[in-house]
């Protein structure tokens, strides 16, 4: 049974310039103890999904669809019940630990706060628990009395992780948890997260733009582009043999050292990720796609099975569900590219 089940999630921000559809129909299934990586570039909607799952988005944002967390629809919860779900069922480790901690409060008090608020312990007991949480994330308990500025970036990120664990949630959403950190410290924090996940049997959603980080940490990978998941499957398969041309480009941006294909050959995609309020017609990736062919500009393919365990949203693959184009017709077979391009 899945712990988290997101169905047909749409999120539209209301801005002065008009509606900005940031997430356009995303489904996610996550079982207990499973780690899902959500990859994509800035503006693809990955952080918005994190916000939508715990209803942390600004007021007035349109959120439709279903977010079932442990059999309750988070999108319909009353405020009191929602507060109980946050921290105890699911919690978030934000990017930029520098700004997420209160600079004028001791970190011990910050970690203990949710424990007390959720009535899980009295203040004294909560502090003791905060101490053991700190030790769990690899900091000595005496650092409870420190203020955030007394800690390094990596230590602050560890404190953020301790806070996320404070109320024993079953799901942790880590939104770019290591982006601002140095390489060596990044590796330390990643290992810590992975160890905690395994020890505590946590389910995790790991959000980042760095595909190579995900491949080491996650069981499954979902790659997003322009508000949709465009490829999904087991992490190593998606990274090693990407199906969607976009995933292929992303994984080439983080080549393995020693891989002769990339020696002296940096490769990227022309153009930029589209602005969510001004999306191209058809497949949103087609203006940048190296393998674009006729129907791509007017047919928007849904995510479908391209092999067992793996789904992709790309017309290059046989078996795309009969896709109705803007003019009301289906994809003509003669528009298909030659077979050798399908791999």
């Amino acid at each position, binding site marked *: 049974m899945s712990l988290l089940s997101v169905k047909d999630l749409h999120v539209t921000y209301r801005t002065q310039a008009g509606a900005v559809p940031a997430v356009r129909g995303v489904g996610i299934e996550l079982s207990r103890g499973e780690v899902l990586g959500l990859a994509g*570039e800035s503006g693809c909607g990955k952080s918005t999904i994190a916000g939508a799952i715990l209803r942390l988005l600004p007021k007035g944002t349109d959120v439709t669809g279903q977010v079932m967390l442990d059999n309750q629809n988070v999108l319909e919860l009353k405020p009191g019940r929602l507060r109980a779900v946050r921290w105890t069922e699911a919690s978030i480790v934000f990017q930029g630990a520098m700004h997420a901690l209160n600079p004028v409060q001791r970190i011990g008090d910050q970690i203990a706060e949710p424990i007390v608020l959720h009535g899980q312990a009295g203040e004294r007991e909560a502090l003791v628990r905060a101490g053991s949480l700190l030790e769990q994330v690899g900091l000595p308990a005496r650092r409870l009395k420190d203020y955030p500025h007394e800690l390094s970036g*990596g230590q602050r990120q560890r404190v953020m992780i301790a806070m996320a664990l404070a109320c024993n949630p079953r799901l942790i959403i880590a939104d770019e948890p290591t982006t601002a950190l140095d390489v060596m410290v990044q590796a330390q924090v990643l290992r810590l997260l992975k160890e905690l996940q395994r020890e505590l049997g946590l389910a995790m959603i790991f959000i980042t733009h760095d595909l190579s980080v995900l491949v080491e940490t996650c069981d499954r990978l979902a790659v997003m582009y322009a508000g949709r998941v465009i490829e999904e499957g087991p992490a190593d398969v998606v990274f090693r043999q990407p199906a969607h041309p976009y995933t292929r480009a*992303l994984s080439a*941006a983080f080549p393995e050292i020693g891989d002769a294909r990339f020696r002296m050959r940096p490769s990227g995609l022309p153009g930029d990720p589209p602005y969510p309020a001004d999306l191209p017609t058809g497949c949103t990736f087609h203006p940048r796609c190296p393998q674009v062919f006729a129907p791509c500009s007017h047919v928007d393919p849904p995510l479908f099975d391209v092999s067992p365990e793996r789904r992709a949203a790309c017309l290059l693959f046989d078996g795309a569900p009969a896709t109705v184009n803007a003019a009301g017709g289906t994809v003509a077979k003669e528009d298909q590219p030659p077979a050798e391009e399908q791999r």
Partner: protein
Amino acid sequence: MNDPLADVSPSPEATGPLLEVRNIHVSFTGRIGLGAGLIGKKATVARAVDGVSLELQKGEVLALAGESGCGKTTTARAVMGLERPNEGQILYEGEPIWNDLRAYRRKVQMVFQDPTGALNPRETVYESVAEGLRIHRVAGDERTQVAEALSSAGLRPPERFFLNYPHELSGGQRQRVVIAGALVLEPHMIVADEPVSNLDASVRGEILALLMELRRRLGLTILIVTHDLGLAWMVADRVAVMYLGRVVEIGPAEDVLIHPKHPYTKALLDVVPEIGGAGRPILTGEPPDPTRIPRGCRFHPRCPIVASGRAQKLGILGRCTDQDLALEEAARDHHVACYLTELGEEP
């Protein structure tokens, strides 16, 4: 597809290095209050660059890699003449760069990490690119020169971008404007400090490919500062790895990145995430502090060879902890500062 490997090897007939950095030291002094000064407290001194020597041949791409605080950016800034070394020399075509800094800065241009910060938000693309021409009072038709630079940087047709302001451009386009601003002066060398780390993953490759194309077409020499060894693999002929203000390993990219000979380089390579890499050792502790450089080999407090007892077994521990060391040739063109090297041991 043309083969980029075919015509990129640095010309061997070059007489000397284009740029030579000779044992430079750059230190920064912290501030102390008047009271603390009166009672005799000394300001802390951070030795950001503590004896670095490098040579760049014409047409070569050298990557300077390391953790933050290792001095790689300070080295690059010193090469640009933006920091004055306390000691040491920087020679360009055999001349100290300080003799005629203005002329030097026309030939050597810098591309910074953050294109948004590097561009004046109230200046159009045209103004930003033309600024260098005006500062250096370059003769010729300004409009044509700006258009050529923009188009070389991949902004085509260039006229379309003349009147854009930075906020109207994407991150990748802004970095191209910064590169155009450097190219407009027809430099011989570019110093690029983390040129793609602020860009989206799919855009990075294009900017790197642009730098490679410029090197091939214009014969540019490039010093690229990066923390990303995967990036070095994609663009660099040679790689220099820095730790606490020193180069600890330097050599051809294939040698340094595939057969590292310094334990620190190996540790850096070990943390590049990859499939099935979960069991690899990770150095403990924070990036080191340049105000407190350890005795002996500056890496010894974090060195896995010391920690595992192997250094003691090999009988080098005493020197590791007590005796500073310089780069030694470990293989052809491959220099390493580690006591393992003379024993012929691998980290």
